[in-house]
């Protein structure tokens, strides 16, 4: 009789803990969803006013299309079974099937959907101001249906089929799985689309200042806020040790973002003689991207070290890509998400409390982190190249010179985002 009662209590506690976990994942996913607003505002603020509406449309549509496509196909591929190509691809859908249906797993679909949308939207900023809207939509759809889910399946199902999982790879919330994938796709897209008209004159990089620093700043604040869901939610549970885990992840996330902003501020202040606004904003994001992989395996000092390094590296990387490689990335997406995503993943090999080189590790983790992150970058770059190359040869990547100079808003969407006044000639 007593044993039966104890069993009933245990069962009830388990059910409550499970429900709390689902609640936390759902709330976290809602925060991550709102990051789309942050990406939109950041991209709008750092570019010219004549392309505002186009940026709104790109960011709304990659979320909208991604939500449907990831429900229909993406999740099934990412969490499927029956490996082909040595673990490269899962040929059978997950238990919930294509067109996801589940009795009790909806919160996981929602959480994974908003992560997928995040990877997609990273590309938008790097190719802002000159890319055809239709081309972007097709590329974004392929990214959310195939490119992201395929490489996601290498690690995140956390099962024996995920080859990076069995290798001991660590990427808590997706510095590589989400951000480096988006950053690598952004790099390839920015190269293939080419720079904005006027960005390089006689081989020299020109400043094309963004039109609204307030939007840029609000965008970064929204992203910073959303990241507590992005990383904290990736604990995937709540209650007891998981509560401590999730909240320590949130503190690590905040510390890395803070020190990233501080590092970028002083680095640019010393370098340009001015406290640079847009670079400081990028520094906070660099710290966030960098800590995303390691927020569950480092302590606060490790988080500060990773954030600091990312805050400085992002500035050097933005300048190098802009001035030396002559790749036009208006918002710094390649540096923030690609470079700092890679760096943050690799730095786990140094700072992880379990297996990091600075904490008595053998260097094996550092090696796994390095090739694991590179696998994501190479995959995203190659897959993006194939898709974009086909698009370039068929419908084209760029708008016409006239459309670009006069603005995508008026030509792609038929209105200006900031009309002086409204009048109609009948």
């Amino acid at each position, binding site marked *: 009789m007593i044993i039966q009662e104890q069993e009933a209590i245990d069962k009830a506690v388990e059910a409550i803990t499970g429900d709390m976990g689902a609640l936390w994942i759902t709330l976290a996913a809602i925060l991550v969803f709102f990051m789309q607003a942050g990406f939109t505002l950041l991209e709008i603020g750092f570019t010219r006013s004549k392309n505002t509406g186009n940026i709104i449309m790109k960011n709304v549509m990659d979320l909208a299309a991604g939500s449907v496509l990831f429900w229909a196909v993406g999740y099934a591929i990412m969490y499927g079974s029956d490996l082909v190509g040595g673990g490269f691809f899962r040929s059978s859908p997950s238990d919930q099937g294509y067109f996801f249906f589940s009795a009790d797993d909806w919160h996981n679909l929602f959480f994974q959907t908003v992560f997928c949308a995040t990877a997609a939207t990273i590309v938008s900023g790097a190719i802002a101001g000159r890319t055809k809207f239709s081309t972007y939509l097709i590329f974004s759809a392929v990214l959310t249906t195939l490119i992201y889910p395929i490489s996601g399946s290498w690690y995140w199902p956390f099962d024996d089929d995920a080859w990076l999982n069995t290798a001991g790879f660590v990427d808590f919330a997706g510095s590589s799985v989400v951000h480096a994938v988006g950053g690598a796709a952004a790099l390839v897209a920015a190269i293939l689309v080419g720079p904005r008209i006027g960005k390089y004159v006689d081989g020299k990089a*020109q400043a094309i*200042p963004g039109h609204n620093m307030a939007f840029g700043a609000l965008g970064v604040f929204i992203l910073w806020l959303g990241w507590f869901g992005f990383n904290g939610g990736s604990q995937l549970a709540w209650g007891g040790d998981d509560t401590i885990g999730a909240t320590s992840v949130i503190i690590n996330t905040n510390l890395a973002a803070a020190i990233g902003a501080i590092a970028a501020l002083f680095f640019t202040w010393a370098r340009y003689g001015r406290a640079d606004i847009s*670079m400081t904003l990028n520094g906070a994001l660099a710290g966030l991207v960098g800590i995303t992989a390691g927020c569950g395996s480092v302590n606060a000092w490790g988080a500060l070290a990773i954030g600091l390094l990312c805050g400085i590296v992002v500035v050097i990387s933005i300048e190098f890509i*802009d*001035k030396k490689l002559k790749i036009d990335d208006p918002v*710094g997406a390649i540096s923030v998400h690609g470079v700092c995503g890679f760096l943050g993943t690799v730095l786990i090999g140094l700072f992880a409390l379990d297996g990091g080189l600075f904490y008595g590790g053998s260097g094996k983790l550092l090696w796994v982190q390095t090739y694991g992150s590179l696998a994501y970058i190479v995959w995203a770059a190659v897959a993006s190249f194939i898709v974009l190359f086909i698009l370039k040869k068929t419908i084209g990547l760029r708008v016409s010179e006239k459309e670009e100079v006069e603005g995508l808003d008026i030509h792609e969407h038929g209105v200006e985002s900031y009309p002086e006044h409204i009048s109609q000639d009948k």
Partner: protein
Amino acid sequence: MKKVEAIIRKSKFDEVKKALHQIEVNFFSYWDVTGVGNEKQGHVYRGISYSTSDIQRRYLVIVVSDDFLEKTVNVLLDTASTGNVGDGKIFVSDVMEAYRIRTKESGSAGIN
């Protein structure tokens, strides 16, 4: 009647407006303009230094009767000045006629 057009620094606008009110020039129009001049402003954006001579100024149009002209110009010369390049310019021209739309008055009665 004369039309006084003045291009001044935005930072001097409040001072100028106050001084104009003090000499009882209470009616004028203004708008923000971008001009090209001798002054160059240095900028740094995302690590790229550049300078531009496209600078922001405020453009005032003041229509005054002839006996107000001298003090209006003097107020502008005194209060809009900092002594540095880029303080702006003043243009004076004749106005043929002025009307107040509500009362249909014309001439000086139309502007005061």
